[in-house]
């Protein structure tokens, strides 16, 4: 019934801290931890999208709000409610789509989790594939059955999952199926 009230207590704090421009570098343990999302498992389409060969999913390289420019993501990613996340995605699909596709959607919980790189933290993602990813919390499209208010997401600072109120503000990265 109750959904980790702790998160809602300290998340505003995290936002406050994240407003300060951060130059914190990612840490990866290349030596003694096996990567679960090695760069060779992704095919880059050189247009702001990559395909994860293990899952067949095509991902946007940048978070929503950022722009893809020559292999980098520039600009600030946008945080939004669970509803805004879906409406914004719908809108993008209706207004020409992205990289020639108009069937983008929010990833479900397992899909979102499949791109966590547990070898790294701050952020817990392969930055060669997903550059300039903020160390932030991201929404999935999976609602939480144990709550009337919750939906699942993943914290890409350390790779942990969370469930929080659907009207809280988190980031999104879109996905589509290729088969």
């Amino acid at each position: 019934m109750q959904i980790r009230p702790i998160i809602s207590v300290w998340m505003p704090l995290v936002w406050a801290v994240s407003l300060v421009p951060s130059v914190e570098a990612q840490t990866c343990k290349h030596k003694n931890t096996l990567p679960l999302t090695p760069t060779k498992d992704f095919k880059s389409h050189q247009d702001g999208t990559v395909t994860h060969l293990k899952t067949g999913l095509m991902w946007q390289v940048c978070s929503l709000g950022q722009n893809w420019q020559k292999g980098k993501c520039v600009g600030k990613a946008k945080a939004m409610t669970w509803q805004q996340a879906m409406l914004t995605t719908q809108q993008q699909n209706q207004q020409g789509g992205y990289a020639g596709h108009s069937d983008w959607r929010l990833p479900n919980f397992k899909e979102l989790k499949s791109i966590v790189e547990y070898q790294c933290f701050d952020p817990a993602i392969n930055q060669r594939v997903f550059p300039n990813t903020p160390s932030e919390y991201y929404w999935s499209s999976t609602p939480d059955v144990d709550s009337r208010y919750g939906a699942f997401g993943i914290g890409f600072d350390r790779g942990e999952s969370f469930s929080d109120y659907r009207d809280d503000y988190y980031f999104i990265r879109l996905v589509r199926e290729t088969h």
Partner: protein
Amino acid sequence: MYRVVNKPLLKNITAWIGFLWLAGLLSSCSLLEKAPEAPKTLPDKDTEAPKIQLNGGDLVIERHQYFTDPGATATDDFDGQVAVKVSGKVKSHALGSYTLTYTATDQAGNRAERQRQVKIVPYSTVPPLNDTGIAWAANYPQGNEEKCRGELAAMQDCAHGRDGFNFTKLDAEGRPLPRSAKRWSCVKDNHTGLIWEVKTRQSKRAGLHSREDQYNLRNLIWASNGGATGYRNHDGHICTGFIARKQDTYCNTHAFVQRVNKKGLCGAHDWRLPNIQELTSLLKLRERGAKIDRRYFPNTRRGGYWSSTPVAFDKSMNWQLDFSNGRDTVTARRDELYVRLVRTALPGGADAN
């Protein structure tokens, strides 16, 4: 007092009678069996080499897994059990094919030899994605639908991705069983290609796979242990068969995997700890209560199950998953957690069925 003293004695007597009867039965059976062969007695000279029996056949092992040789036994027509020598080396950190040679020599000098190929293949990363189990839509900012309908349904989990799981029960030899089977030892996930250990009820005969058994985390492979080996024996007797000062009976994940691979499970000797992505593939978030399909995975306990995935920001921890609430968290390796072992079904191999 009388009853207390007398009971074990009585039990003993019945046990002895039973034992004698069984022994008689067995010996008469073997006599009967041998009867037609009676003229063919052993030759005067031992000219036949011992017969070597390999535990498990050729093996395919994932890179950076600790390799455990399941071993071999040899029997000789004159000498009975004969010692088996193994030569050859498997480098589990390097891809390739390796040969182990087993030799056994009887007292007359007859020598037998058998070989086992061990192939080291790339380690598993992310398995093909399974369903999340969600078949209903949520409303905003609150409320859940019974079905996949409502304002935002088309953009939600219930409208996309895979629907449903595809499991097959396997018997103790790894052969497929019908869905209605009452007893099974392993479950094959036909979508991810992963084969999972199934836990048994706690009992005196539970053996290696009791649902109550817990372990501390231990990983001796430096390429994959995050920079620390974890704990050998932090909590003592938390699993079946623990004996103090006998390392191979200890309740840590490394010793457990070795025990299972020595003995074999569902016809296989390449069991390992699942990574956090593999463990997550079993999550079923559809309804309240257990977040796993209990029709295929009974005896799942409330509490964490170890993954092989180390925690990048703390080398004294690993990731775990709790199937009672679906949550993944980081946990100290000295903690007591459950384990569900996994192996990868090999296309075209013994697992093709």
